[in-house]
């Protein structure tokens, strides 16, 4: 398993390189143009000049290698510089976003906190409510709790967030004036008042996202619990006089976690990918909004960088999930 993990980590390097290459080619081949959002009034010659200024006249291969160098060499050096006040990265060209004409990583760092706050919290909340709902639904299959849970989670999943989000805004921001409809990313929490403000502006986006996440995870949790509740070892646990809580929450739960861990692990990188629609609806302007605007603007360096970070996280969390499988179920062997 240790060797397995190490091997997987080693394999991850060429995998990621390959992924980055595929992403690059994909972005390059996909139709679209970084100047698409510039007004039609700009004459073609000027456009051509602007394109050249972006480096678009270089062949794709050269740009890819340049990106690799920037991402794996200049950017880490730069981070090092920032942390330790050195100046190794001096003169090295960082990854420059075409939209902002500024280092892509800086913007990403800037966006990270609000994304983590909103999307991350929503995810945590989603998981926290999904697990008990799934467990209780399975334990009391077809009880009213289960039926309502099923109903709500199915609605939660089938009604898109662009709809639920707007409904919440209309009800709670427009009609009741409880929460702001627009998220203030400049708010700094330094006292209770601002904390309360922060909480208020987070409630709606977090609710929408959490509902969506929870519906999905709770369904998997429920299904998996149902599979295991009928097993013989449950009988043994009961025969030992264990309380139902222990029986369900320890014995059955642990056996049921594999699909749930998979889903959760798959979801964590998406936190860093942001929640495109919800961010848009509530104007959170996190990484999701960054990605989508970059895609619309065909800001290749930004998209490439974001996507690659996302890819790396995906690979990492899937590996973590794999390791967790081994922890959860000792029978699983990888060697």
């Amino acid at each position: 398993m240790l060797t397995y993990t190490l091997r997987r980590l080693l394999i991850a390097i060429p995998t990621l390189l390959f992924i980055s290459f595929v992403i690059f080619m994909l972005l390059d081949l996909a139709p679209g143009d970084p100047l698409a959002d510039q007004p039609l009034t700009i004459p073609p010659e000027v456009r051509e000049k602007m394109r050249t200024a972006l480096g678009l006249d270089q062949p794709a291969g050269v740009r890819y290698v340049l990106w690799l160098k920037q991402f794996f060499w200049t950017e880490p050096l730069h981070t090092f510089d920032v942390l330790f006040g050195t100046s190794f990265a001096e003169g090295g060209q960082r990854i420059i976003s075409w939209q902002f004409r500024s280092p892509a990583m800086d913007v990403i760092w800037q966006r990270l906190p609000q994304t983590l706050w909103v999307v991350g919290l929503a995810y945590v909340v989603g998981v926290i409510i999904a697990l008990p709902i799934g467990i209780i639904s399975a334990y009391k299959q077809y009880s009213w709790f289960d039926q309502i849970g099923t109903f709500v989670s199915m609605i939660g999943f089938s009604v898109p967030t662009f709809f639920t989000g707007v409904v919440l805004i209309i009800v709670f921001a427009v009609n009741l004036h409880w929460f702001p409809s627009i998220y203030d990313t400049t708010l700094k929490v330094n006292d209770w008042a601002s904390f309360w403000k922060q909480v208020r502006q987070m409630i709606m986006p977090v609710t929408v996202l959490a509902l969506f996440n929870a519906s999905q995870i709770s369904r998997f949790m429920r299904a998996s619990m149902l599979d295991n509740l009928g097993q013989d070892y449950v009988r043994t646990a009961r025969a030992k006089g264990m309380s139902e809580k222990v029986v369900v929450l320890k014995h059955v739960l642990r056996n049921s976690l594999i699909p749930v861990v998979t889903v959760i692990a798959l979801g964590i990188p998406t936190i860093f990918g942001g929640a495109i629609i919800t961010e848009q609806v509530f104007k959170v302007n996190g990484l999701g909004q960054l990605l989508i605007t970059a895609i619309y603007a065909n800001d290749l360096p930004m998209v490439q960088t974001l996507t690659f970070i996302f890819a790396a996280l995906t690979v990492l969390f899937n590996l973590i999930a794999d390791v967790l499988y081994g922890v959860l179920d000792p029978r699983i062997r990888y060697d």
Partner: protein
Amino acid sequence: MLDRPAPAARRKLVEVKGLKMYFPITAGILRRKVGDVKAVDDVSFDIYEGETLGLVGESGCGKSTCGRVILRLYDPTAGSIRIDGTDITETDSETLRKLRPAMQMVFQDPQASLNPRMTVAAIIGEPLDEHSRLSKAEKLNRIYELMDAVGLNRNFANRYPHEFSGGQRQRIGIARALALNPKFIVCDEPIAALDVSIQAQVVNLLEDLQDRMNLTYLFISHDLSMVRHIADRVAVMYLGRIVELAPRDALYERPMHPYTQALLSAVPEPDPEIETVRKRIILTGDVPSPANPPKGCNFCTRCPKVMDICRAVKPPFREVEPGRYTACHLYEDTTTAGRTGAPEAFTSTQQGV
């Protein structure tokens, strides 16, 4: 049974040489390997065509593992296995699959080895699906035959494993193994969960089949009386190694290895009058673990006749009398050891019968 030709004259169907099967011991979240469980540790024996080799031994000594490796259900750590002349230690899975109908297994744990989502008919019919081209009706017929043979009511054909009693499940497993008329069957405690009448029925069936089709069995069991009934030769395992291998009658009459002696003395008798007064050899001492076997003889920690040499040198597994093999320092010198080895303890229990 004496009406059969002497084993030596017959063809060897299964040849096992230097077989080892180690399971890794791991630790920590990342499960680093920290050692090996030597479940089967350098085992060699042959099984002749048409004979039944009984395999007995302490629980956890590696019998099941041994049976499974022989059928290549595990990949052995070392050693070689030849079945019917083909070396199956290294063959690829497709060739192996083709060989499967000839070698089958009855699993020890009936509940775990039956797919909970298949009906009995489907379970028993599976090997037929795989390796025969019977029509639907023929297949059904065969399934019914098999169910009759193991004493399962035909009406159970549509039931699922969890709806059965332990013994009934065991019979499903037996029927499945018999479905393809294999040449060689590893029976891993096939009768343990059955009541005596059905045990008898199954054993009779196995013997019948053997007579009719010249089947070969590796019969793993704790039930020494049943082994005595069915086996031609008996191998006794202790902690991953075979400590004694002998023709059945010879072994039951005059066990050589101290462990075999202890084992036989412990068999209970279905008669309260005898049972309550019978004497046994009670083994004392530490039971070593297969992860960390003693340096010398594996049995040295509990052997009532332990000598100094036992603690230092592993006794070789050798033929001490024609057809009798044992791994014990007591029989270093074949002739004298044979005499001195005849234990009083054993004779005393014999008297009880």
